[in-house]
């Protein structure tokens, strides 16, 4: 064998083999240069967790990449950079690179597939968390929690369960339980109209009638969504259930009671030009400059905006104090719920530095990290003491954030964790609903949803 290789190297193939050899050398130089355990070697990582030295005792220089979904703009970027700097100050041998990501799945999935994802990964229930688990992206944290004696009792058990795998091993340390029930309102618009501000006592009918009254065709919109997919929260507010089980669904049910009714009401408002959103563009849904969501609200064109707590610092920045705003809990019908998103940080299963990645996860997702988020008002901590003592006590806008957040926490429902949820639910309902809202005349919403559910069952079987 060796003599054959020698012949090859001496012969005319030498020239062809040379570039391959160079490439191999380059690849090996770029590759894993540790003890050869290899990326993705979970068992080795777990063993390190149990038996390896505590990171504080090691002076070996370590580089960590941390990816997070940036939903709150610059305030969140600043916070994450500050957290990284604080960790580096605590552990001078560690250097952190923060990677804010806007298009979460499209950016991270190829990296996970290629084994090059960042060491610490954010995960969110409405950003393909189920898919990430399906790809084994997160390192089970059980052995690390156990080795450190890390106390998880402060977190709601339902949340720890939601972020654990089928063996009960924790995958993410939950940082936030965001509810999309913040009904921001522009006080100036309400004052000018001589109307009472929204409060927790409103019904959906109250919201609709006030939104109509505060709308001026193509000039002012009574109501708006921070992003168009919030039509789903609207459906939930009426009591529509999307699936038969909120955690691991076995069937789609978004053609059930109250679902078509919610969409029909929304369609009517959209066609009247009461709602500021892209999907109603042809009915006058766009504010000047084609603005929607936060930018239209911050510019003073929208009376009420549905969003979450993270939107407040951005509204405060972008409105520049041109008007005062506050938030109230979005109204719910009997049986109504609020769409929400729980998120947290975990360790990438392919990291070369699982122990340090876990240290960093604890640092940013533990109580101390959550306090920092709560202080600037971009996260709703799942730990009730932080919600009460930091989030509720902070000066961060909006004033009524505490009661809204608590109302949200009590009524939030997350997306199921099924692998097939994105092709089955998102792909189908999005185009179906958009075609209904943009059709020349109002569709039969019940028939439309019945057809869509049938399509969902084929496109993303849940069993």
């Amino acid at each position, binding site marked *: 064998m060796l003599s054959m290789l020698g012949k090859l190297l001496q012969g005319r193939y030498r*020239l062809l083999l040379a570039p391959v050899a160079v490439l191999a050398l380059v690849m090996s130089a770029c590759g894993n240069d540790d003890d050869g355990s290899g990326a993705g070697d979970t068992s080795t990582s777990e063993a390190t967790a149990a038996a390896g030295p505590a990171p504080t005792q090691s002076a070996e220089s370590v580089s960590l990449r941390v990816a997070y979904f940036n939903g709150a703009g610059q305030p969140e970027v600043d916070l994450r950079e500050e957290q990284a700097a604080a960790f580096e100050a605590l552990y001078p041998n560690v250097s952190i690179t923060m990677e804010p990501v806007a298009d979460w*799945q499209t950016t991270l999935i190829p990296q996970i597939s290629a084994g090059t994802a960042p060491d610490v990964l954010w995960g969110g229930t409405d950003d393909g968390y189920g898919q990430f688990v399906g790809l084994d992206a997160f390192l089970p944290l059980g052995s690390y929690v156990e080795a450190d004696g890390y106390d998880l009792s402060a977190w709601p058990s339902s949340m720890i369960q939601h972020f654990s795998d089928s063996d009960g091993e924790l995958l993410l340390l939950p940082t936030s339980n965001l509810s999309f029930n913040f009904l921001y309102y522009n006080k100036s618009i309400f004052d000018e109209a001589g109307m009472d501000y929204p409060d927790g006592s409103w019904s959906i009918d109250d919201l609709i009638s006030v939104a109509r009254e505060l709308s001026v065709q193509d000039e002012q919109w009574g109501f708006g969504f921070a992003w168009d997919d919030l039509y789903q929260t609207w459906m939930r507010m009426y009591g529509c259930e999307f699936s038969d089980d909120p955690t691991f669904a076995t069937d789609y049910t978004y053609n059930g009671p109250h679902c078509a009714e919610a969409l029909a009401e929304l369609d009517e408002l959209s066609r009247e030009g009461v709602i500021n959103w*892209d*999907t109603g563009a*042809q009915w006058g849904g766009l504010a000047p400059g084609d603005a929607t969501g936060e930018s239209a609200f911050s510019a003073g064109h929208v009376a009420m905006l549905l969003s979450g707590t993270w939107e407040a610092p951005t509204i405060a920045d972008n409105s520049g104090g041109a008007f005062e705003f506050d938030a109230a809990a979005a109204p719910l019908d009997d049986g109504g719920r609020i769409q929400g998103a729980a998120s947290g940080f975990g360790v990438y299963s392919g990291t070369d530095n699982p122990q340090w990645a876990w240290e960093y996860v604890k640092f940013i997702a533990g109580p101390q990290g959550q306090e920092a988020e709560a202080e600037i008002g971009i996260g709703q901590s799942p730990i009730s003491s932080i919600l009460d003592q930091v989030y509720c006590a902070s000066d961060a806008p909006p004033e009524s954030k505490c009661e809204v957040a608590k109302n949200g926490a009590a009524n939030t429902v997350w997306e199921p964790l099924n692998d097939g949820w*994105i*092709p089955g639910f998102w792909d189908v309902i999005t185009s179906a609903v*958009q075609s209904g809202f943009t059709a020349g005349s109002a569709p039969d919403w019940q028939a439309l949803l019945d057809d869509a559910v049938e399509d969902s069952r084929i496109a993303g079987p849940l069993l």
Partner: protein
Amino acid sequence: MTDGQGRLQLRRRPRPQPNRKLAKREARWFYFFIAPWLIGFIFFGLWPIAASFGLAFSDYDLGGWPSFVGLDNFEKMVDPVQGPVLAKAIRNTLFIALTVVPLQLALGLGLAVLLSQNVRGMPIFRTAFYLPSVVAGVASIVVWIWILGSDGLLNQGLELLGIDGPVWLRDPATVKLGVIIVMVWGGTGAMMLIFLAGLQGLPSELLDAAAVDGAGPLRRFWHVKLPLLTPQLFFNLVIGLASGLGVFTETYVISTDPGSGAPANESLTLVMYIYRQLLRNLQAGYASAVAWVFTAAVALLTALQFWSSRRWVHYEYEN
């Protein structure tokens, strides 16, 4: 020189012996210089192409290993759910490509004729008309998003004419027209340049002869210039159609929900459909199958164009 019988014998010159050492050295350098491209092509071109062919017959979610599923992915293209969406993506793609390419060809040719005139300051005009082709795609699309906005430049212009313009890029009825406008603006310059080069290379004796025979400018264009420009027309057609069918950047950037095909899948093109299946739905096998069918269709279309070119493309010095 004569042979023994007095016949003239031409002395054969010895053939120059190739310098084998030099040839070897040249070959070595040849491989050395093409190696970066070759390695890049093998690893980033050939290997992914071959892998995607294998994946087309597999179930693969980008994690773990693919499992062989035979023709399932191809059957899925016509199932009751994916079939209509894929058909819509195909319709959208064909509508865009078959509208954009003729417009680009006509405008490119027209501009080339205008820019081949002997007028002062012509290099400035040529640069100006070619400029859109070299501006980064995303940057120019962002400018177009503003121009085609509900109160953008185009609608303000239409308003002066008493026309209430649509919300071009957000209305299902007009989103494809918006994409077409963006593509025509960005792609016409390159076609114009090819036509311009062709026009400048036309043999003057033919044009002079036609003029002497009494042919006016229009007749000279139609019966002399245009037939002589058919090789450039053919080149532009082949390249334009292939890139038009592969439209992705424009439809991706104009959408408020990139990659979704919004509104209501009206901006969903074939390549975006493949992208969606691959990176959002993690159906790499199905995405590969669609990609291969698409590739085969484009190859067939190109072959048809080459076959038909024998009837309508005229080369100046052909027999």
